[in-house]
């Protein structure tokens, strides 16, 4: 039976850290157990990334549903949860997105205390720079939409940009900086810690996290889901929630569904660690380049998709060349620093660049995906809304618009107006 005996004795704190250090750090328990799968669960979450683990945590903590398994084909957190640029923000312009991401941001703001895990949520601001009057108007439309919905946003002029980010070249001949849209509550969090924190919190409430257990089929009877076939055998379930962004189409195919989703490659990079240089997150509209500095000192940055369907997690040089050109153009002092590592993740790109958290035509089967670039910041909100949708069998107002049916109805949530061309989003 699910139990919580360790919850109180295994709390993290400065005192505990001191106490354990005096006894050779022998008293720490595994952050999550490695249980064998049971024959069946009330809910199975497919995908042990941030979203799946957060869903399990909120199913247990908000809805009291603890007979839950998270099944993951490899070790937890090594998909996009461990391959992103750690940015957290809610600076979206369309209300369907703003509502959802702002809920997520609010959850981030209390996450450490909720999880008893320091995920290093760091609200040092997210600044989106613009390069022309018309781009300013677009930024203002977005910022005003946020403000009307009660979300923080500020419009910075050139001088304000200069004082916030003195390292930026304001007078690039082709991309002069006209100003920026700032969300001060935005920032970054430590991506791996988010995974581990949710895993630990869910585990302590009795959720079974089952690693190295790949789902190979979704069993249905009479239009209703009954469980999942896995590499470790069949596991029964009353409800199955799929949260496998990057591989959503593959799971959908197992359930006989076809989705408006393509898998695309997004690269990210980190530099050698340097002393503090860049305080918050800065994004450049013109060069499709964004950058922040981690608490360890590495500059974390990324840009556009590689631009073709891919499941490879192997980045390619054209994006690297373009991105580094943008980087040095926007921040000339970067030139002599060095890039240490590059990695790539598989993005679930939808046809309007917005996600879905919704029911499916199959009873008891729920999908969470299409995160495009937005997955990391969505982690707590996505888990919270998905848990609600699964527990109540209906969406919360926060995710009511985030359906797959919106495309059929012509109610796209297309922030950038790029249309059904995922490679161009």
């Amino acid at each position, binding site marked *: 039976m699910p139990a919580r005996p360790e919850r109180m004795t295994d709390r993290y704190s400065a005192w505990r850290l001191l106490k354990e250090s005096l006894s050779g750090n022998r008293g720490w328990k595994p952050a999550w157990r490695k249980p064998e799968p049971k024959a069946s669960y009330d809910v199975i979450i497919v995908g042990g990334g941030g979203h799946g683990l957060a869903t399990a945590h909120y199913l247990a903590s908000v809805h009291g549903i603890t007979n839950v398994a998270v099944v993951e084909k490899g070790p937890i957190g090594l998909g996009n949860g461990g391959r992103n640029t750690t940015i957290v923000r809610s600076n979206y312009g369309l209300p369907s997105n703003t509502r959802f991401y702002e809920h997520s941001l609010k959850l981030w703001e209390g996450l450490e205390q909720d999880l008893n895990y320091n995920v290093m949520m760091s609200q040092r601001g997210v600044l989106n720079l613009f390069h022309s009057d018309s781009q300013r108007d677009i930024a203002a439309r977005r910022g005003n939409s946020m403000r009307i919905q009660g979300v923080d946003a500020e419009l910075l002029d050139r001088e304000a940009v200069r004082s916030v980010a003195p390292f930026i070249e304001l007078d690039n001949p082709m991309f002069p900086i006209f100003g920026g849209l700032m969300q001060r509550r935005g920032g970054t969090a430590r991506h791996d810690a988010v995974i581990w924190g949710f895993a630990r919190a869910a585990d302590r409430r009795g959720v079974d996290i089952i690693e190295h257990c790949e789902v190979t089929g979704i069993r249905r009877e009479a239009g209703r889901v009954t469980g999942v076939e896995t590499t470790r055998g069949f596991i029964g379930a009353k409800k199955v929630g799929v949260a496998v962004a990057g591989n959503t189409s593959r799971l959908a195919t197992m359930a006989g569904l076809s989705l408006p989703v393509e898998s695309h490659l997004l690269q990210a990079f980190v530099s050698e660690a340097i002393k503090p240089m860049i305080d918050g997150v800065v994004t450049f509209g013109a060069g499709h380049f964004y950058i922040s500095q981690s608490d360890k000192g590495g500059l974390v940055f990324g840009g556009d998709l590689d631009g073709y369907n891919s499941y490879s997690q192997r980045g390619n040089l054209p994006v690297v060349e373009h991105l580094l050109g*943008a980087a040095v153009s926007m921040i000339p002092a970067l*030139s002599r620093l060095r890039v240490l590592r590059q990695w790539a993740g598989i993005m679930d790109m939808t046809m309007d660049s917005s996600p879905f958290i919704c029911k499916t035509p199959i009873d008891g089967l729920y999908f969470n995906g299409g995160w495009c670039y937005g997955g990391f910041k969505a982690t707590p909100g996505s888990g919270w809304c998905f848990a609600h949708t699964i527990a109540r069998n209906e969406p919360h107002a926060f995710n009511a618009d985030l359906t797959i049916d919106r495309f059929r109805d012509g109610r796209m949530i297309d922030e950038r107006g790029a249309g059904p061309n995922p490679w161009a989003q």
Partner: protein
Amino acid sequence: MTSKRLPSGGLIDRGTTVRFNFDGRSFTGHPGDTLASALLANGVRLVGRSFKYHRPRGIMTAGPEEPNALVELREGARREPNTKATEIELHDGLVSASQNRWPSLAFDLMSINGFAGPAISAGFYYKTFMWPKSFWEKLYEPLIRRAAGLGRAASQPDPDHYEAMHAHCDVLVVGSGAAGLAAARAAGEAGARVIICERDFVPGGGLLLSPADAAWRGDMVNALEAMPNVEILTRTNVFGYYDHNLLGAVERVSDHKAEPDQHEVRQRYRTFRAKQVVLATGASERLIAFPGNDRPGAMMAGAALTYLRRFGVVPGRNAVVFTNNDSAYETALALAEAGSGKVTLVDVRSQSALAAAMTARGIDVRLASEVAYFDGKTALVRRRGGAGGDKFVADLLCPSGGWNPNVQLASQSGAKPRWEATLASHVPGESVQAERSAGATKGIFGIGAAAYDGARAGREAAAAAGFAKAQDFALPERGPAEQPIAPFWEVKASGKSFVDLQHDVTAEDIRLAHREGFSHVEHAKRYTTHGMATDQGKLGSLVGSAILAEARGEPVEAVGVPTHRPYTMPVAFGALAGHASGAHFQPVRRTALNDWHLRNGAVMQPTGAWLRPFFYPKPGETGWEPIFREARAVRSSVGICDVSTLGKIDVQGPDAAAFLDRLYINTFSTLAVGKCRYGVMLREDGIVFDDGTTSRLAEDHFLVTTTTGNAAPVLEHMEFHAQTVWPELDVQFCSVTDQWAQVAVAGPKSRETLAAAVDGLDLSNEVFPFMGVGEGKIAGVPVRLFRISFSGELAYEIAVPSGHAETVWEAILAAGKPFGIVPYGLEAMSLMRVEKGHAAGPELNGQTTAADLGMGRMMKKSGDVIGRVLAGRPGLADPGRPRLVGIRPVDTNKRLRGGAHIVREPGSGTSMGWVSSVTQSIEHACWIGLAMVENGEALKNQRVFAVSPLHDESVEVTITSPHHVDPENLRVRA
């Protein structure tokens, strides 16, 4: 001062002295030195502090795997943090400084962290700093951020330049050791185009440490240099192996100088597209974990040999060499030959055939033993796993845990590394791309064996690229087989045993990670940060895996190592950017009238790739004044504007009309020759894609214009549908955007102006009405005229072969002089288009339908049209969607803001739409705007609020028609 320079030997030029500076002190060295070898030769032992505990550190290696000796190289705008002293070629005047210490290297206050050791073990920060909540942002994190990081970035722009270069070859050889040289020679002799890349500044790799093979190395290099089909690139590190046999590299062109010469780049980013690749990148020595293995004086055995043999530096007086394999015996011998003190060889293996020879040279050999402790001055040597032991005075401790073949590039190419038990290491797995490894990269050690294997690989690669085998060449002799390595990773004894020196990860941290469930190698890496420092885990990654494996009770190979990803060595941002940064970041496009605009004082602004005149200020004019003056001239008389950036597509063929009918929501097959028509095209999802006027020049010949930004996408859209969807249609396309410069002549006096300039065309309203198209001559230049208007005034556009643009422009200016013609820029044009209510970029934003823009009725009743079907979806057909309207402030003194939202009442949390475009109007003497407002048409003449909380503004506005001037369209038809 425990190290010293030998009187002879090595590859340094003792005849020349160069001066350099480290931490404010002056030293000397010689050409051929690295900063590290020169510091060692000067007896400098302490070179850096570690990341977390700020422990004092010395030079550990002689290559890119260096974890400790990181310096800030150069000063000012050329300052490069985190530069490995082992990779810096010494040059005269070199300035360097240690980093990550305060106040000084010798006395670093942060070393107090070392005492907190157990409490700041792996992952400690995840468990604390959470209370009180607000302290994270205010206190804890700022402290962590300040403590973190290594060196400091320069604060000024880099004065140096970079470039990219793309090469192709039949065979790319990476590495110029025995295997690489032999591979290049074999492939070169076969006639293949060969490029050989060497990271170091001298070719030779391990050959540089073998005096006996110096002659062969020289012969090989000479032979390769003599071959016209072979290119040798030194100082060139291949950083990544990408798809389709493309490799990326950086050539350090002038890093070995104080600053680049004239015309010289600092670094060159290179790509190599190779038919075949030979990876001869050698092997890297790995660490052994034992207490104190990080103390100044600890130096890898192979590195010590390098300092002795290549740089003529004795890195210590009394040395303990600690090994589990044969390679370190040579270090012990070389130390004994060179040194004045005692050399002790500690081998974990219980027997060694080489022991007697060592003893004969006066080396104290301790078999079946281990080093249990090192503090920089003494080492404790004991029987394996035993207690007690003997203390040795030792200022140099040289571990050798065996050699890891450098499989990074092979691994990046897709070849999954394979565990080789006899080497206790990974070797390259089965090739996925056209590559093969050779020599030590493959686990074939020894110069003769590696050379032989390299020659084989080179021949095979050349053959695979289509070049027959040529004659053989001399290879060094193969030495005797080595004794087997005894896998050995850690000495279990009390004290900190490091597996990652730069990040201060200890063996105990790895075990703690395992206890806490981070048992997968990727989890352990992320939890402890093992292998994530600038040395990329080259020394200790496998050691960490072995310790993790032991904790898991599994063999090392079951644990593996984290995936190899680019970059094999850190790469400068500037290098990867190449030439394409700053003003060269992306192409700049100039119209044929660009020079005229500049000569006449235009303020030019980039719009996309184009440079366009925004306005032409007169002396003393500020703010909106030039824009008003230009727009007023157009509204009252006549103005001229460069509109060359519009996309122009020539469409011909018997089916051209039928094709355009499917492309646009309105009809073009009914357009008469000599007329033009405004058209709107949709994306297939029913959203507006682009708009513009299309002219029919002949029955089967149209000229389509597009918006500036969509010129290329529209042509691609046309080609896609013509080639793949309707291949049966006979239609041809050609972009003529650059062939024709285009100028707009607008205003009530435009007809009179042009009448004075144009020959061969009657411009009267009867003969040349609104939407007419004709041909004539201006200043003898044949031109096309279109009677179209963007400003809302009587207007024409004139297309001119671009080479004649200035001539025609000047002729029109002359003709318009009596009417006070002025050139007007983009800002005045924009002002007038907002007044006229034409939808443009802000409204055609990829979110709007034709109906949203008030053009729903343009959709023809029948026929196949791209976007027709999906435009009918309920969400897009919803009459409540935001519609294009005009807005004007009730209080005409108030300004409007683009991006404001429309609400019923100030303070409302519900937006009804947004303001897409605003301008100050010259017709209405107030701000006006265009907005997309839900049920906009029904709200006409009603008052709402345009709010911009960002500006803390709320303006009451009246909803109007979008056409702020001449809604009946009388002027354009005048």
